[in-house]
Every structure is written in structure tokens, then in C-alpha cells.
């Protein structure tokens, strides 16, 4: 019922100014990783190569969007006393489903991601969006909010994985991109990029760039 209403309202302008903000803000000005500093753990753990990172990004996106949608749909039915555990149950169902699907269809990637798929449950971004947004908004805007935030997460971890795979092993998506000639001239892969600490440096550099472009985050 409510889903139908929002659709009708949104039909006039493609996306109202408010809806655009929901979608675009989390990409930079309110990015879950670089500004809110959520979901850092998985950003360190899964980003040594682009392929698993891509799968991780898609998985997180699916979980955030679906859980935001479901919670928003039943937000008026959820008893507030047990709302956190209800949210957690919904997230867990979705994450386990994603994990099962990965094991069935992309087994090698699922092995690489190992426990980190399961740990999407504890990714603060997911529950943060449910508590902060889906519990108080209609399904339409909730989906937009979820897409915005998970895309904000996705592009950061993809950027980190790009840097780590390129400088750590000279490859992108598993293909050699740094030519052999470079290695013959004495170029060496950066081993730091292969360990989690490397991701921390890359994220720090992204945050640095972001804050120097956008002075409003500068503290004192």
C-alpha cells in the first residue's frame, strides 16, 4: 500500500531534490567509510584483489538495499522493544542467503572471502542505515538511501582494491598490467599493499584527498 503511494508521488519529477541528496550524499560528503568511518574492517580485509572486492561490494549492496526495503515495509509493525533484534534477524537472513548463493555459484570467490561474507551481518553500515533511516521512512526513499550508502561503500573499497592489486601484485582483475619490462628495469611489487596495513594507508590517502578538496571537514 505505502509502496504504491510513494511511487505515485515520485512519478512527477524523476527524482526530487531530497531523493537526489539521499542518493548522492553518501558518495562523498557523507561517505560511510571515509566520513562516518564505518565498515573499515571489511575494507581492510577483502581488498587485496579487485574480483573478490567486487563480489563483496555487490553482496553488501544487495544486503543493504533488501534489508532497508524489508524493514521499511514492516517498520510500523515492528515492536520497538525488540526492533534491534528484528533488524539483526532480517540482516542475518539476507547475509546467509547471499553466502549460500556465493557458495553455489562462485565457489572460488566465496572461499577467498571466507568469513567476511558472514561478517557483513556485523558491518555497521547495514544496521546503521536501518536504525537511522529505514525505521522512519517509506520504502521508496529507504531504497534510495540504501543504494547511495552501499555505493559509497562500494566505490571506496573498489578504489582501495584497485590500488592494492596494481601496486601489490602488478595486476588488475587478475590480469598482468605492469609490463615485464618494468620488472626488468628493477621495479618491485610493493609487499605492504598485500597486507591489511596497506589498505589503511590507501584509505588514509583517499580521506586526505577528500578533505583537502572539501574544506568543510577540516577540524579546527
Amino acid at each position, binding site marked *: 500500500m505505502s509502496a504504491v503511494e510513494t511511487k505515485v508521488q515520485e512519478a512527477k519529477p524523476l527524482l526530487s531534490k531530497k531523493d537526489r541528496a539521499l542518493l548522492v550524499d553518501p558518495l562523498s560528503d557523507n561517505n560511510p567509510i571515509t566520513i562516518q568511518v564505518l565498515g573499515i574492517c571489511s575494507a581492510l580485509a577483502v581488498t587485496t584483489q579487485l574480483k573478490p572486492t567486487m563480489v563483496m561490494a555487490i553482496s553488501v549492496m544487495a544486503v543493504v538495499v533488501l534489508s532497508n526495503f524489508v524493514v521499511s515495509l514492516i517498520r510500523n*509493525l*515492528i*515492536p*520497538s*522493544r*525488540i526492533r534491534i533484534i*528484528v533488524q539483526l*534477524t*532480517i540482516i*542475518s*537472513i539476507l547475509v*546467509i*542467503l547471499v553466502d*549460500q*548463493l556465493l*557458495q*553455489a*555459484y562462485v*565457489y572460488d570467490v566465496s572461499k577467498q572471502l*571466507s*568469513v567476511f561474507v558472514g561478517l557483513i551481518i556485523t558491518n555497521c553500515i547495514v544496521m546503521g542505515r536501518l536504525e537511522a533511516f529505514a525505521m522512519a521512512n517509506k520504502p521508496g526513499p529507504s531504497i534510495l538511501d540504501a543504494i547511495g550508502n552501499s555505493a559509497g561503500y562500494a566505490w571506496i573499497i573498489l578504489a582501495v582494491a584497485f590500488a592494492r592489486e596494481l601496486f601489490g601484485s602488478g595486476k588488475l582483475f587478475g590480469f598482468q598490467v605492469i609490463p615485464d619490462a618494468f620488472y626488468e628495469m628493477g621495479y618491485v611489487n610493493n609487499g605492504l599493499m*598485500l*597486507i591489511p596495513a596497506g589498505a589503511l594507508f590507501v584509505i588514509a590517502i583517499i580521506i586526505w584527498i577528500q578533505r583537502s578538496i572539501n574544506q568543510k571537514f577540516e577540524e579546527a
Partner: protein
Amino acid sequence: MRSSNNYVLTFAVIITVVAAVLLAGAATLLKPMQDANRKKEKQENILSVVGKTGENDYKQFDQLITSLVIDENGDVVEGVKAFDIDLAMDKRIKSKDANHKLQYPLYVFEENGKKTYILQLAGVGLWGPIWGYLALDEDGNTIKQAVFDHKGETPGLGAEINTDAFESQFQNKLILNENNEFVSVQVTKGAKAEGEMHQVDAISGGTITSNGVSNMLKEDIQFYLTYLNKSQS
């Protein structure tokens, strides 16, 4: 009304039932595909120790490999499928119940009239299970290749056991000494001495995992010895 205990309880029960139905359904539907993936991985692991690493080699697994099951007396057990044996589980039961009879899978690869025995290994590392496959030459002594894998050893430390650098050290090592006594292969620090046939270099920072590999080799190879001795004579 929505804060009444009855409502809260009813809601909780409904959510739980929905969750259970969804997850049970998904698990049942996807199980055949997941099992097929696991079987393929195992077949590829076994084939990789005899150098068959082609994309589609696993499809010919049954033609390339003879799967046997052997017992502690070195006899072949009929009626048990090698792939059905959960070695790690069996060894765990054995550690609690000494009467439990272990059975080990043995895979035999034959090329140009020469046999290669592929032994299955299961042990424990620092954080969880480790396992591997060992290709043993027809003489029942020379290691041709070994592969190891692990559930969740520390990346960069214990997890190094499944890298080529570690695994290739096992090539051409011997499990028997000059007097034909079983000495296994130890994973120890500073095993660099030339001509040392029973040691490989451990992983720095991965001592417990390295010891796990050592113990696993010792325990599991030993089991196969009776069978190997019989088939030598």
C-alpha cells in the same frame, strides 16, 4: 497494543518461523550445487599433486585416478567410497574413543606404467583444521609433490603453507631413512642443510601451523605404511 507482551511474542515467533523456512529452503535447494563445487575442488586438489592442473581435468577424475580405502592392517576395504570419508572428523572421534577404527582414502594415479600414491592428510593448525595431499612415488619413499590448505590460518604467516614456495620444498624428500625406517618429514626452523632429505624449512611466525603440518605428516603417512610395504613386496 503494539507494546503488549503478546504482540511482541507473536511478532518474534512469526519472524523466527519465516527466517527458518527461508533459510532451510535455500539450504536445501542450493546443496546439490555446493556439494558439486566441493567435490570438484577436492578432485582438483588431488589431481594437482600429480601435475594434472588443466581446467577440465577433473571431469576425467574417475579415469585418471583409482580411489581405494585402506584400513590399519593395510588391506583394501570394499564397499566404502573414498570420497565419503571425512578424515578430520574420524580422527577427532579417534582422539576421544581409542577403539574407533580409522580408514584412510588412497588415490592411485598411473602413468606410463608407473604408479603414484596420493595420500590424504588431515590435521590442526593454529586456528583450525589444515589438510593436504601428498604424492608418493611408486617406491613408497620419495615425495613427488605436496599440497596443503587450511580453514583460517593467519594470512602471511600460517596461511603460507598453501603457497608454492612452501609446498615445493617437499619435492624429492624421503619419508624413510637408510635403514628403511619411517622418519617422516619434519617442518623445522633453519632446515637448510644440503642433502637433508627429511626436513623442510618452517614458516617464520607460523610455528604452530608448521608444527601442525609436521604432526599431520607423521601421523597420516604412518597409517599408509603397512599398505605401501605390502604392495612393494
